[in-house]
Each structure stands twice: as structure tokens, then as C-alpha cells.
């Protein structure tokens, strides 16, 4: 039988498939057996209660979607009292995604969610850093380093940094996160995009712009996951556009230790469990005993360093 066990630093997962933050909630238990997942990853929460962005909050683009949900949040207290206990019914590691608009606020919520029942913290650093010029922490190595250092000081739990594709410095940002003490990287969040209704001439999202997710994002996030795996020594968790088992295998070969499935769950709520079964079947067919054998097995021998680390298409 195939061994799907996956280690993300000190954390051991029964398998490498988990949901992406914001595309998963307690509600999915109605359709899917939540015990099958490698981990549970919650929607990003903030310390304060927040309303989220104006509607419409999603729109469709060819073969993918945009969202500008924002981070509606019932606040940390509600979360600790209601959400953590829900997930603790399951024997699956719980990863809590957090965010804030300044490094200090970020550290505070990090400390507050470091409670029993939480197994790792995912820092959604793709949100605007309002103390600086409003660009997301994850867009620059310096701001990434600063915020991750603060978070590292605020919690002893495994700390994952979720990177953004909205940068020309993927590798520098990845290395900054590692240096500041991140235990893993999640690669990546959504890509800033836009769509306009040609009849009303209004932006299709209430918030004007939003993040691209789904199959269109895959080749971009895969490239980032590959670059990150090549440049850091901590595990990389691939995320972006996964909808088939081939996509998952591609991420693993590129160097990801595990993957997060987001938008695909909206199209097929059973996607994660189906993909898990297909991954097992794929490994069996290929006579691969251990899923970890795939990780980083890309045959890129000929590629010069300069190519691996390039940040633009020539």
C-alpha cells in the first residue's frame, strides 16, 4: 500500500492534500468527510470584527474566477469559542490563517491564536501593509522579513508564510521568510486582476479589483513553487489552480511537499477526497511506495541557475 504520510517540518499529515484558506469552512462537512483531509486550514481571521468588501464579491473569467471577498471576520473571540472546538472534533491538524494590517497587530493575533487545538499558523501576508505604502507585506523581502520576525517572536507553533504572486521578487521574498523563521511556505495566494461588464461599464467586482484563482493561476503558482523549493530549505506547500490529480503531481515533482486545493472545491465540493483517491491510484500505478519520492523529482538537470531564478519570460 502507498504511504501518503507527509511531514511539514514538525507536523505530520496523513496525506498531502488540504484546503486553501478562504475556500473551506465548517459547512463542507455536509458534503465531505472532513477526516479524509491532510489538514484543515481556516479562512483568514483578524483580531477585530470586519465586514468584508462590497458585493459583487466574485466574478467569472474564462475558465477561472476573481474574488474580492476581503476578510470578513467575526473576530478572534468568536473564533476561539466556536471554530476551534468544531475542528477539534476531527483527528486532523488544524491550521489557522491570520492577518492584520500592521506587523504589531499581526503579532498580537498570532499570539492570541496560539492556543491548544491549533497545530500551525498560516500568515496571510498578502494583505496591504497600511503602515508602509499599502503594498502587501509579501511583495517585498524587507517587509516580509519584518513581519515574519515579529510573528516568530509571538508563537512557538509551526509558522507558515503564504506568499503572493504580485511581486517580481518571489525568490527574495521566500528567502526572507525562511530567514525570519518561517517553518514552511504556502505558494501562493491570488493574483491581482480585473474584469469589466461591457454593458454597464462597471467593474464586475464591487471592490474594483480582485484576485485570480483557479486553473489560470496554475502555471504561474507552479513556477513560483518550483523557484521557492529551489531556493529555500523549508517545505513548500503548493497552491494555485489545482483541479486534477495531474496538477497535484506536477506540484510535487516541482518540489512541493504538500498542496492546497482552493477554487476546485467550489466546482466539485468532493474534489479533495476524489483527488486523494486519484493520487493514491496514480502512485500505485507508477509503483511509487511513498509520496515523498515524487517531491522535487523534476528533471531540470540542464537548467542553468540563471534560468531557475529568472523572474521574467525571455
Amino acid at each position, binding site marked *: *500500500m*502507498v504511504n501518503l504520510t507527509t511531514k511539514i517540518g514538525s507536523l505530520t499529515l496523513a496525506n498531502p492534500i488540504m484546503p486553501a484558506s*478562504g*475556500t*473551506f*469552512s465548517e*459547512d*463542507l*462537512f*455536509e*458534503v*465531505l*468527510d*472532513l477526516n*479524509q483531509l491532510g489538514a484543515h486550514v481556516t*479562512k483568514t481571521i483578524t483580531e477585530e470584527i470586519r*465586514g*468584508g468588501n462590497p*458585493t*459583487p*464579491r*466574485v*466574478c*467569472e*473569467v*474564462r*475558465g*477561472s*474566477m476573481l*474574488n474580492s*471577498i476581503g476578510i*470578513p471576520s467575526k473576530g478572534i473571540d468568536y473564533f476561539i469559542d466556536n471554530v476551534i472546538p468544531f475542528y477539534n472534533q476531527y483527528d486532523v491538524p488544524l491550521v489557522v490563517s491570520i492577518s492584520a494590517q500592521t506587523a504589531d497587530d499581526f503579532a498580537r493575533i498570532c499570539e492570541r491564536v496560539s492556543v491548544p487545538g491549533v497545530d500551525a499558523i498560516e500568515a496571510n501576508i498578502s494583505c496591504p501593509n497600511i503602515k508602509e505604502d499599502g503594498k502587501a507585506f509579501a511583495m517585498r523581502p524587507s517587509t516580509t522579513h519584518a513581519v515574519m520576525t515579529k510573528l516568530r517572536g509571538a508563537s512557538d507553533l509551526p509558522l507558515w508564510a503564504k506568499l503572493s504572486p504580485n511581486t517580481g521578487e518571489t525568490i527574495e521574498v521566500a528567502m526572507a521568510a525562511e530567514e525570519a523563521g518561517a517553518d514552511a511556505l504556502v505558494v501562493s495566494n491570488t493574483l491581482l486582476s480585473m474584469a469589466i461588464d461591457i454593458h454597464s461599464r462597471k467593474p464586475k467586482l464591487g471592490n474594483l479589483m480582485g484576485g485570480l484563482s*483557479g486553473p489560470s493561476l496554475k502555471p504561474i503558482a507552479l513556477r513560483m513553487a518550483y523557484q521557492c523549493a529551489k531556493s529555500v530549505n523549508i517545505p513548500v506547500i503548493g497552491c494555485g489552480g489545482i483541479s486534477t490529480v495531474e496538477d497535484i503531481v506536477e506540484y510535487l515533482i516541482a518540489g512541493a511537499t504538500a498542496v492546497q486545493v482552493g*477554487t476546485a*472545491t*467550489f*466546482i*466539485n*465540493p*468532493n474534489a479533495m*477526497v*476524489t483527488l*486523494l*483517491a486519484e493520487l*493514491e*491510484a496514480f502512485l500505485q500505478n507508477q509503483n511509487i511506495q511513498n509520496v515523498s519520492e515524487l517531491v522535487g523529482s523534476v528533471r531540470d538537470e540542464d537548467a542553468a541557475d540563471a534560468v531557475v531564478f529568472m523572474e521574467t519570460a525571455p
Partner: protein
Amino acid sequence: MSILERLNAGEVSSATGETHEADTRVKSNTPVNGEYRLLVLDAPQSILNCQPGQFFHLLCPVTSAHQPYLRRPMSIYGYSAEKGELQFLYKLTGEGTRALAELKVGDTLNVLGPLGVGFTIEPEWQNLLLLARGVGLATLAPLAQEAKRLGRKLTAICSARSQDVLMSIDYFESMGAEVITLTDAEGTSDMDSMRRVIETKISEGVVDAMYTCGSNRMLKLLQEIGATHNIPGEIALEQQMACGLGMCQCCVRSFNRKGLITQERVCREGPVFGIQEAMAW
């Protein structure tokens, strides 16, 4: 046992057993009039425990001409566990509904549902009134079936551009409802006419609860009438949806709950809400 084996053995499955992703087979898919089509599906029993007002999330087919990505929410127009049948009445709008229209007899359609919270019919609501226009009929139609099953009296006020685009009149009548038709062509569908018709019914004492769907103007009208005459009511609302299950929080609308403005998910807390808490938009 491997996951694959457990999946096949049915051991890995829905925890509640209420909501399912299921493949259905197209029995028919025919035009009702210029813009509307009726889709009849052969559906498994597992998804036929439906309530009027609930909806399904349809995975529209992908073709060279149409490539919808997200699922599309559709109210249940008809359901029958006996016949193993599920029906949707839909309006040709864009990519998704045009793709639906391409479905041929025998094709497969993947659906997710039933979803959301449907209409309430309290035991003391013996006389029901529904107010529908356009595709709103699709959402309100199953109320007639339920009213009949529960032995309640139903008045259906159906509004449309003209008599020839009025749909489902026969259906409502076959369910024993009294049908009142209002059309733009005859000048009987404006808000004042509607109000008069409804208030006449109220004065006849045959309105314990009112139901409507979709339109802002009808919402406001029923809110006023309901407040004046102290008659409860419900409205089914629409909002852009991604997941349909409550996960993504894209489908929120504002509601006035005990003086506080709250955001509720149409797919989860709705699509049916109390008429007085719903907010015009």
C-alpha cells in the same frame, strides 16, 4: 483499506447525507417561451428530499461555444421522489444558461443540492398568497405543490409583460390555486394595481402569509402591506454565488435584524428570508 477502496465501498461520504453532488440524466430540455426553458432531470433519490425555496447548484456543460466555469444556482421548480424527477425553469441569460440550453436528452448534468433554507409554512398559515413575476415563478411554483399536500388554500398572483409570456398558470390551477394574472400589456401589473388586488384578498380574509421572490419593487410592496396589515411573509433572494455551500462568503446581502444591519449568506442562511428583515437594494 485504501481511500479508493473506502470511497468505492461508500465509507467516505457526506456526513449529514442531506446535500449531495450527483449526476443526473436529462429527460427533456424544452423552450417554454422565447426566453425560458424547462429542464427535466432523472435524479437519484438521495437528492430528492427537497423543500420549496431550496435550490441546486448546476455544473453547466462546457462546449466549444460556451465555457462556464462556476456552477449556476437554480431554484427547484419541481421535484418528485416518486418519479425520481427534478425540474428547473430557467431563463436564457449568459454563458451558463446558454450552455444548459445545449443539453440534449440523455446527457449527464452534475448537480449539487438541495441547498439552502426553503420557505416556511407555519401550521397556522392556512391561506397563502404568492406574488410572482418572470423567473420568480420558478422559485415559487413548488410552494403550490406543498400547499396542496398540506391542504392550504393558495392564491397565486402572476405578473408578466403580456399574457403570452405568462407561465405556469395551468400548473398553479392544477394544484388548486386561485390564479390572478396581471400584465403590462393590459396595464394591470403596476404596483398600485398589485396593491389593490392583494388588499382585496386580505379584506376577504384569505391571506395569512405572503411569499415573493427577486424584485425590489415587490419586496417593498409586501413589506408595506405586511406592516400595515400585520401579515408575515417571506422572500427568496438572489446573489452571485461561487461555492453555494457557505464557504466563500461571496453571496452575502444586508439584513435588518432587530435594528442591527447584518450580513447573511444567501446560499446558507437563505435564499429565503423574512420579508421584513430583507433590505431593498
